């Protein structure tokens, strides 16, 4: 069979290579720009209005670390999820992932009772939680994806209802728990941006590092998945296998972010879409870092605003939900209109 290929350096091949180089350079520059802004905001956050350096710095430092972890976790999981579902309106949170985490946590508390848990280390509780999350996530959402002919909005609606179901059930279970048990564990369970669950920082970092290293191997295959299931398989990607692994990664990332700051429903949506718009590329190797940087900027910047400008009279998650909700509506309407 004759091969189809152009022989040695033609004009076309040369300019293509140049084009490639130029694009890469521009992508790196964009990332650097984001990193600089992020760095500046972090520096500001750490140093503004400090009275007692010995006290403020470590405390703020921990907060910054938490925001870095959460920012990365939400960004990465959202981009990955959007790729495997081939859609830019979805994120794991919209599908009810973070509500599921809260539910699992509450059920564990209900089953094991407060005393046992008070004696159990927080890290162990976290690990158990993550394990169950991974299990349920893989089962539940694989069932949803397998259905041929299930359309997208259907999935989203189901996800939202699941979110309400889990949320209601969680509140319900919380009332079923012995009030004594409940008080013991209350602060552990309700994390927020203003009260980050800082005990878990170490294990959260470990989880994120592990999961990221694991996923680096299939980052390029994810680029191909953007073309859709059929084309990905055509080009040699083991699609079903890959989606499974991604679900595991996503489950861990969402567990981390929910454990640290509670549910932030629409944040991933905003951040993933902004990253694609800003970077103008499909490559995950660039989109994921961009999304992470944008999310760190938003979190640190937002929290700065909340603390210094609004002086804690509002909550970051509320603002995010509001802006994100409107953006989601806009995307939804635009998608359906286009059809």
């Amino acid at each position, binding site marked *: 069979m004759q091969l189809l290929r152009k022989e040695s350096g033609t004009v076309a091949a040369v300019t293509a290579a140049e084009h490639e180089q130029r694009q890469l350079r521009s992508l790196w520059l964009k990332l650097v720009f984001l990193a600089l802004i992020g760095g500046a905001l972090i520096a500001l956050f750490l140093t503004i209005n400090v009275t007692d350096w010995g006290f403020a710095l470590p405390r703020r430092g921990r907060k910054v670390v938490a925001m870095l972890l959460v920012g990365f976790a939400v960004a990465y999981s959202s981009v990955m999820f959007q790729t495997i579902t081939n859609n830019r309106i979805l994120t794991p949170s919209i599908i009810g992932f973070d509500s599921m985490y809260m539910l699992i946590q509450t059920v564990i508390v209900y089953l094991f009772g407060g005393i046992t848990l008070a004696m159990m280390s927080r890290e162990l509780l976290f690990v158990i939680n993550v394990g169950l999350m991974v299990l349920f996530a893989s089962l539940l959402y694989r069932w949803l994806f397998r259905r041929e002919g299930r*359309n997208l*909005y*259907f999935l*989203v*609606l*189901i996800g*939202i*209802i*699941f979110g*309400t*179901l889990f*949320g*209601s*059930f969680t*509140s*319900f279970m919380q*009332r*079923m728990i012995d009030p004594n048990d409940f008080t013991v564990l209350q602060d552990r369970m309700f994390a927020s941006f203003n009260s980050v669950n800082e005990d878990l920082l170490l294990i959260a970092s470990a989880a994120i590092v592990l999961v990221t290293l694991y996923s680096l191997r299939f980052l390029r295959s994810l680029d191909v998945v953007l073309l859709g299931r059929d084309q990905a398989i055509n080009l040699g990607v083991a699609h079903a296998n890959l989606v499974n692994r991604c679900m595991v990664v996503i489950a861990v990332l969402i567990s981390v972010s929910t454990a640290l700051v509670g549910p932030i429903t629409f944040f991933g949506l905003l951040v993933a879409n902004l990253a694609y718009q800003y970077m103008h590329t499909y490559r995950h190797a660039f989109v994921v870092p961009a999304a992470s940087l944008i999310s760190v900027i938003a979190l640190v910047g937002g929290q700065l605003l909340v603390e210094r400008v609004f002086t804690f*009279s*509002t*909550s970051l998650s*509320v*603002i995010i*939900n*509001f802006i994100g*909700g*409107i953006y*989601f*509506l806009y995307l*939804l*309407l635009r998608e*359906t*209109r286009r*059809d």
Partner: protein
Amino acid sequence: MKRGSFVALLILLVLLSVVSLFIGVRNITPWGLFQASEDQLQVFFISRVPRLIAILTAGASMSVVGLIMQQLARNKFVSPSTAGTMESASLGVLVATLMFSSASVLHKTAIAFVFALIGTVIFMRILEYAKYKDVIIVPLVGIMFGNVIGAFTTFLALRYDLLQSLNGWMNGDFSGILRGRYELLYIAVPLTIASYIFADRFTLAGMGADFATNLGLNYRFVVNLGLAIIALSSSVVVLTVGSIPYLGLIVPNVVTIMLGDNIRKTLPFTATLGALFVLVCDIIGRTIRYPYEIPISLVVGVVGSAVFLFLILRRGVYATA
């Protein structure tokens, strides 16, 4: 057959109503009623009876409201809780509290009503603007719209330190129903009756302005009346009881699956089943962790979500009226 089952429902409703009157921390029994102490009688007439009336009224009226909305929007998944109506009413209550802190209940109702009306109208506009090829998008948009309003409301509440109170009325709860505090709910009764009278006209209006006017209907009037009923009922329920998720969605759907779409036939059923549904959930909430009480919004949240899921999976594509 239908007659039979309707009567059966009514009987069940009456029975459970009686049961409901005698559940509670204070031990009151039917036969003890005649020798009841001053104390027990007080509890009975100040708390138990009003509570029962509130349950039945809220359940019936909201289910009927849901039915009307579904007729008007030609979509089975529209309801006050999936169209931003309840959230708008809540926002209205918050604004009323903020701006007129010593406002009378009537005042608050009026403001909540205005907000609920505006919210519902905006939702209907959004529906018209985007032509949907997919019926499932409608409740999705509605829920999201409601979430956005909810987020804004929470933002305001946090700002002015009203979050505690906000959670109070955002979460439906019958435990605060006392004589003298719930009579506003009575407004819902004539509204429900009006719905029955105008039922056919709502169905007609749902088919579109041109179609309906062609058949001699005063389209604008009917639609506005429908919206007013929806907004007012929702406001009144939010003010007295709080927000109950998926109410107005579940029951009409269950009824129409079983009985079809003839609204004259289904409306009485819907009202009765709605009352029954809320009653059963309330009884569950009061007995499952006796003597503690689980608020109605949670019980309905769990049961309602499960039923909604089932409906979606079953009804799926056939959700246009």
